[in-house]
């Protein structure tokens, strides 16, 4: 990643390239942690679709895997899960 030195080198609008975690490990922002109960999960992938931060990936069998380094704990996955297989648990102090 390079930054321009003078105004003449600047682009018309600021632009940023896709990158993992440009703001650092945002998982530390979390107060509540989503926990998946894999025995009730139906692998519908709705949590994966709805996660606004791309912090959920699909395993081979379509079950979700949550990346706790970047999950901010918004709870959207738990809210969308049709079988209540995701619960939000308070982080330890």
């Amino acid at each position, binding site marked *: 990643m390079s930054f321009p030195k003078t105004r003449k080198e600047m682009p018309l609008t*600021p*632009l940023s390239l*896709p990158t993992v975690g440009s703001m650092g490990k945002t998982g530390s922002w979390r107060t509540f942690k989503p926990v998946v109960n894999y025995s009730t999960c139906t692998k519908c992938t709705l949590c994966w679709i709805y996660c606004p931060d791309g912090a959920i990936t699909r395993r081979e069998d379509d079950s979700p895997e949550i990346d706790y380094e970047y999950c901010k704990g918004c709870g959207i996955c738990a809210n969308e899960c049709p079988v209540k297989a995701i619960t939000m648990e308070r982080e330890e102090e």
Partner: protein
Amino acid sequence: MAQIVIDTANHIAGYAAKAARAKVVAAYPITPQTTIVEKIAEFVESGEMEAEYIRVESEHSAMAACIGAAAAGVRTFTATSAHGLALMHEALHWASGARLPIVMVVVNRAMGAPWSIWPDFSDSLSQRDTGWLQFYCADNQEVFDTIIQAYRLCEDERVFLPAMVCLEGFLLSHTYMPVQIHNQNEIDDFLPPYKSGWTLDVNNPVTHANLVSPEWYMEFRYMIQEAMENAKRLIPEIDMEYGRRFGFQYGGLVDKYQCENADLIICTMGTIGCEAKVAVDNLRKNGLKVGAARIRVYRPFPVEEIRKLALQARIIATIDRHISFGMEGFLASEVKASLYHMEDKPLIAGFIAGLGGRDVTFKTIEGIAQKSLKWLERGRVEKETEWIDLRE
């Protein structure tokens, strides 16, 4: 072949969007703008115009659709009035900040409350500081020509900013006049295919115009100011080239009439500029040295041209179809600000007239001129802002 049509300025704006080959049109109706997007709907439906016609759910969405389309790499058009323009406000900043060359017609209508559908400039002038260029037209031919010129200007790499082409509701929007629709091949030659400063590309995903820290923000603002200055230089050039090609020319930034050796210059915008020319002819017949200057481009403001006019004039009378509450008309303020550093400044008299569509005839303007000349004789402007035809 060029073709003469007799039609309203709104329909003519539709002809211009078609002639400019706009590829995405966002449409949301509002009086008195509605017949522009109706005309374009006809063109698209009949296959005469090849464009994506998006019926959006609000003006805010209309601008958002134009921003998306312009960023995706196509020429866009939309039109609105008054409260619709006000609803777009936030997105207007986004369009200019992202440097997208969108052209939008604003059919001027007074802002409510109280409710009005008649013209004044309170809608577009409220958007003065959004980073959009602003053109003001005086007749239907100028509406057609200015839309074509605006695309050419906005898509110039030295500019890359959006523009509003303003025309007064009903006075122009619903008034029939003969207009020459120029030969399409010649328009294509004058206006090459769409060009923008950046384009969204799924194969090379990049986020544009997102968060910048205080370390960088100011430079992006300065670049917009530079683009405005470039536009000020380019507008007269483009207007001259247009004149050579099509035979219609409008004086670039300022449409000047009988300003040589004029003691008094009447400074206006929009259709009042036409009436001012009639007034000047009548006053000149009586031996009065009067001229008229119609500000065609309000942003960027033609500071240097105003200074040139002020070199010879002894008094400038501004007529504002607008009031900045708690101050004065914008035109009066801008003219004063333009002349502050001159040594021998003319007097400046500010007049407020025609709000909410009240008629401003050549007779009204002759009265304004007589009053201004009287003040010139006495050596001072007796009232800083005079409201014309105001009930006691």
